[in-house]
């Protein structure tokens, strides 16, 4: 027996190896090509951010020098203001979207009232029409509102948050409604029998049970506020109000070559948290993708 097994590989080796190459082996070099395709722009931006000169022309050689001067230079610009603005706008719209979405989903899932079906259908139809296409009237609306309430006018972060929140109910209610329906009604019923009010049931009972969907909706709202360009560009006019998307666009569109070091350093800093969150939550995001609600 041992002789047979010892001989067999020797005899079958050439054909087995070519079969391995034909079926599995070739996938490794192909993977190397894909990895290069996927990663070289990212490696390049990292290298450019570490270059001592801040211009585009000097960044062709990878990692020719390692200097943090671009990162240090960021503090002389409005970069950190933009980061802060982005966090405020993104955080507030995420929080608002979660709260409003959860309340709406709770009402639709737990109460039976006149116009409930109509309301759900309306939401479904409204969410088909992206708010961004109506940016002209968003601009006109905010101009009119700004004459009365400056905080809701052009160039106000609060106004931008309000605009994002306007789109929140349409975008998230359905996702949350489905999840709320999976929490058995018996739980509320028994709490109601024990004398709990609707508010107590909502805050103490339902909210802790739906935390996963709250996290997903909050993350999605944050990402879409973070990545939004057109509304932010229209609403936020002055440099100290810009979000990252508007500010970094301005860097690259004005004198692209001069600001390249700043841009790459800023891009590396801003993308690292996103990359970490994305890669660590990969599993959940893939699940969310099939719900069809992220970029792509």
């Amino acid at each position, binding site marked *: 027996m041992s002789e047979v097994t010892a001989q067999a590989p020797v005899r079958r080796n050439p054909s087995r190896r070519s079969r391995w190459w034909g079926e599995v082996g070739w*996938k490794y070099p192909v*993977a190397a090509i894909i990895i290069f395709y*996927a*990663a070289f*722009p990212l490696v*390049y*931006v990292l290298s450019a951010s570490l270059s001592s000169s801040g211009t585009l022309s000097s*960044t062709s050689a990878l990692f020719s020098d390692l200097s943090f001067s671009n990162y240090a230079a960021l503090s002389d610009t409005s970069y950190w203001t933009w980061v802060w603005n982005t966090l405020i706008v993104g955080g507030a719209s995420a929080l608002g979207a979660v*709260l*409003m979405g959860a*309340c*709406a989903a709770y*009402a639709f899932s737990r*109460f*039976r009232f006149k116009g409930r079906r109509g309301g*759900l*259908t309306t939401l479904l139809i*409204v969410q088909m*029409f*992206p708010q*961004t*296409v*109506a*940016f*002209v*009237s968003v*601009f*006109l*609306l905010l101009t*009119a509102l700004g004459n*009365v*309430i400056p905080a809701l006018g052009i160039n106000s972060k609060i106004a931008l948050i309000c*605009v994002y929140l306007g789109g929140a*109910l349409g975008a998230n*209610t*359905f996702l949350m*409604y*489905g999840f709320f329906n999976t929490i058995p009604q018996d739980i509320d019923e028994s709490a109601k029998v024990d004398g709990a*009010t*609707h508010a107590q049931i909502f805050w103490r009972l339902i909210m802790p049970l739906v935390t996963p969907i709250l996290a997903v909706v909050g993350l999605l709202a944050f990402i879409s506020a973070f990545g939004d*360009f*057109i509304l932010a560009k*229209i609403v936020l006019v002055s440099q100290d109000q810009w979000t990252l998307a508007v500010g*970094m*666009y301005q860097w*690259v*569109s004005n004198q*692209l*070559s001069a600001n390249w070091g700043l*841009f790459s350093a800023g*891009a590396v800093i801003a*993308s690292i948290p*996103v*990359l970490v969150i994305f*890669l660590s939550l990969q599993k959940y995001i*893939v699940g969310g*993708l*099939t719900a*069809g609600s992220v970029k*792509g």
Partner: protein
Amino acid sequence: MANDDAVAVKEPKAPRESHARRWSGLGGGFIAKLLLMALVNALALTIIMSAWNAEAWAILTLSIVLIVGADIIYFAKRTLPLKYLYPGLIFLAIFQLFTLAYTGYVAFTNYGTGHAGSQQQAVEATLIQNERRVDGTPTVPLSIVRDGDTLGFAVTQDGIVSVGTEEDVLEPVSGAVVDTNSRPTEVPGWEVVSQNELFSDQDLQQDVIDLRVPVSDEAEDGSMRTRDGSSGAIYQSSIEWDDEAQTFTDKETGTVYYADQEVGNFVADDGSRLPTGWSVTVGFDNFVRAVTDQNLAGPLLKVTLWTFAFAVLTVLTSFGLGLLFALIYNDDRIRGRKWMRTVFILPYAFPAFMSALLWRGMLNREFGIINDWFFFGADINWLGDPWLAKFAILWVNLWLSYPYWFLVCTGALQALPSETMEASRMDGAGRWRQFRSITLPLLMVSTAPLAISSFAFNFNNFTIIYMLTEGGPPFPGTSGLGSTDILISAIYNISGVSGGSADYGLASALSIIVFIVVGIISAIAFRQTRKLEEI
């Protein structure tokens, strides 16, 4: 439903008061609600008051309705579902439903530069625009005075100091002190703005130059204006408004301009128009203009075709590449699959707008690494040539969206029933046959709705277009559009929201067309997913 009936039956027997209304125990919920509502009411009151001051009647009415609605809903017993829905509904109504409806309205008007307000505003603006300094009137010594936010002029005429503001006509004041040049230096009740402050404050300078202080209650008499902040002169309009006849008469030439409500302009018999008009509804003019205007129709057609091509090609290429990679690497025999997969999806984890900006630098003609590394420093104008720019956009969008399809397809492949695959292999199906007849159809079931929504997303993918090429290179002509503009970026350029000449009417008309396309696409996707059944 059974549960609801049970509650409904129970309710009359033991009439429980709502937690928020009941005053027993701690009452924490009630106090919290009371404080919150007090805050909301105070806020609403501020808004109502400033709307009153700004004479914004629509906003005033709306805020009253909304706050009364809020008070009723949160203090009445029978409005339970609305208590949870109201805040979200308000945002939805104002910032989504209203903007959609308003887009529909503006699309049928000529709202834009030169047609920005009401006829009344157009009359006032025209009068101001045609103001000329009256020949032969003397310049008078003048100082800028201020009371809080109100700016005014103090002028010395014939030794008498008069003060007026934009609202109040010049009236003599007593007790004012003038300097050797007879400029007022002290005016009782007013703070005189120093020249130094005026020179150092740009905004203030602009306000001073814009300030017109009426000389008398008759608009005919003109108004006091200043160019330098130290001397003033009387300006009168060279054009006269007749409110009865609704006409402007040019005092110098005698030309009469009639108010034409069809076009929203003051038009003379010879067809010449005054530059400032007002906004009127123009029917389908904007839609007609989009397809017949010589400067616009050609570029818009190209833009529309490219929008569809861009959206379709992006979905096809990224779906194809993602599926290919998923098929290749959905293989248990490969080592380090998890690690590979993480690197494969890196472009997707990198924020999309930064990817576009990054590629913009890499594709730079002179210094970009694409030319430098892969084309031996050749001078290829990636973003400046119409076809190369289109190719570059598709390429970059492929780079940042194939990982999405790779993830989706990998998930879908792993969910395929292994028995079916096994059975087909037993029946002797080859690998290609198996893919074409079993894998692909099963895969399409779960991915087709995603492909449709991805199409709708890319149809309006403003970010990548604007960040990479800003729609350029421009078409020849005056349309202001470019070879890589898609409809939404074309709308952005036409609307003039970022400055330049604005045409909100035409922009909204184009938005309506986009809405229709996206609506149809969504309706198709909607039928596929049959979400309605969940209700």
